[in-house]
């Protein structure tokens, strides 16, 4: 994507965002590692991991915004791609445990020994190499998305039908991964990771490194998304979103465009999931739960569908709120807040925070946009 002139990639908002992200990526590790615990400025390692988590969610939000905000494809199953990426990473981390597991089996992960599996199933091969795992992190979600999308878009399944079958997809995967004989640790999933690329996942250094890596990944995927939405391709996507038939009539192969962006978005979600796992230290089938996917959608809605910075912002705001509410006496009220958020945003703030903000700023001529909002939804 380097081919793009920077001027096009970096409008004011995205420049600001990238700078903030950079500051964040430098400040947090400094405050965690260099500032003494005694100091009020010290950032606890817990917070570092937490922020790392947010960053990964922001990436997921970005991937959803790319297809929903710009191509009008509402996927209620993107959590599945996130989780698949996570599992790929998890498998690598499991293999890294080696003989340090409870059963000290050099090859088999503990749960396999526990279920007395004779030897490592074929699809676990290669995951002891990071490179291979990294490849799978992108490939597996990408492939699933490609096959799924190829069926769906070619037979012109759109709107809520698509949303519902994507939800069914992640639901099916969840059921599958809950099973022990699938070889992914059943409902306990994969956990007790020891180290990644030779560094202990528990070490503060590693945690900060992971945070920085996540920030870089987020920045890159942001630039990729920018590159796409500002390219002619992006204009075509929006055209498809607003007037699919018309675009098809202009001679564009709509399904090809959808398929490409859907697959790309899935890969992005996969990477996000992969970075998420070592920072939270576990991946289990509940990541596939349809609820998670829909929750991720609401991040985008809150921040502002169709605005990349909005997706990121939404992910941060909602997840911060979640942390705020779910830790402490407020926890019973979190679901009310979340539920209320879904309703409030769709009813009162259909363009999300950034979207509404932009609308304010831009001159009257764009007002006709708000009239398009409903059509954009279909």
């Amino acid at each position, binding site marked *: 994507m380097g*081919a793009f002139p920077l001027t096009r990639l970096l409008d004011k908002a995205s420049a600001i965002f990238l700078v903030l992200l950079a500051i964040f990526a430098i400040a947090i590790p400094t405050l965690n590692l260099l500032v003494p615990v005694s100091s009020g400025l010290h950032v606890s390692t817990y917070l570092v991991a937490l922020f790392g988590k947010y960053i990964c969610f922001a990436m997921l939000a970005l991937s959803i915004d790319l297809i929903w905000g710009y191509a009008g494809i509402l996927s209620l199953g993107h959590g599945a791609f996130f989780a698949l990426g996570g599992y790929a990473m998890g498998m690598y981390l499991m293999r890294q445990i080696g003989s340090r597991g409870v059963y000290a089996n050099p090859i088999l992960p503990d749960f396999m020994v526990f279920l007395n599996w004779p030897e490592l199933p074929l699809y676990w091969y290669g995951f002891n190499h990071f490179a291979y795992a990294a490849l799978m992190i992108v490939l597996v979600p990408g492939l699933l998305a490609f096959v799924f999308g190829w069926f769906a878009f070619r037979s012109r399944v759109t709107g809520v039908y698509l949303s519902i079958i994507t939800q069914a997809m992640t639901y099916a995967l969840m059921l599958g991964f809950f099973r022990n004989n699938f070889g992914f640790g059943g409902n306990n999933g994969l956990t007790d990771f020891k180290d990644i690329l030779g560094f202990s996942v528990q070490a503060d250094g590693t945690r900060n490194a992971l945070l920085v890596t996540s920030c870089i990944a987020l920045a890159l995927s942001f630039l990729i998304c920018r590159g796409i939405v500002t*390219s002619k391709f992006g*204009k*075509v996507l929006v055209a498809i979103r607003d*007037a699919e038939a018309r675009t098809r*009539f202009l001679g564009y*192969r709509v399904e090809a465009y959808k398929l490409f962006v859907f697959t790309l978005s899935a890969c992005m979600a996969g990477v996000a999931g992969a970075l998420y796992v070592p920072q939270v230290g576990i991946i289990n089938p509940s990541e596939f739960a349809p609820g998670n996917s829909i929750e991720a959608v609401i991040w985008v809605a809150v921040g502002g569908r169709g605005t990349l910075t909005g997706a990121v912002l939404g992910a941060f705001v909602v997840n911060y709120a979640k942390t705020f509410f779910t830790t402490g006496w407020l926890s019973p009220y979190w679901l009310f807040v979340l539920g209320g958020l879904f309703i409030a945003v769709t009813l009162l703030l259909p363009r999300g925070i950034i979207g509404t903000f932009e609308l304010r700023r831009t001159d009257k001529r764009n007002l*006709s*946009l708000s009239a398009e909002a409903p059509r954009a939804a279909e």
Partner: protein
Amino acid sequence: MEPKTTSALLYLDGITVSFDGFKALNDLSFLIEPHEMRAIIGPNGAGKTTMMDVITGKTRPDAGDVYFQQGAYDLSKLDETEIAELGIGRKFQKPTVFDIHTVEDNLLLALKNDRRVRATLLWENTSAQMRRIDDILDTIRLAPLRSRVAGSLSHGQKQWLEIGMLLAQEPKLLLVDEPVAGMTDAETMQTAALLKEINRDKTVIVVEHDMAFVRELGVKVTCLHEGSVLAEGTIDQVSTNDRVVEVYLGR
């Protein structure tokens, strides 16, 4: 007549299309010569839109031949996209420009170019294409509004942008469906002028009810009725034709 030897750009012969029993087109035949402009009129249900659908591949004829470019292509065998690529552009009744794109981007999307994913991803604006867009903007009189969002244009301006998008595809044949419906008188006259200008190097078929506009065009008129040609000739010949008058005044 052996289609391969026709000199016509568009050749329709014995086209019949029926929707559950009702014949929308009934043995419709006519020719459009290269660089001709033709106005098509007719009361409701005369089959004007269905005819357009057949030419653009949206509807398959039950019977009859549709040949394009001196009989080189059998349109009844091609799908919408292929026909569009052959150089037949259509403007729908209701303007369907991309409202949230700028006038310029609307034209950019329509510009004749590689439509594949890779091409659009790695797309770079070249001066040649920019010039092409400028020309079109001048033709359709929207140059000053190039960076306006299409959704904010007036109805007439949208119609022109639509026509501009048609031109951007560099079609050999333009099908223009009710271009002046809902336009002010001034806009209507400008549109007539615009089409005449376009007709200098392109073949045009216009479907329109607005007789003042058709008169202004001053071209050969075909009056359809119940799916076939009722009368053909100058506007005066057609409008004085008793059967035409009759179908317009009633059954």
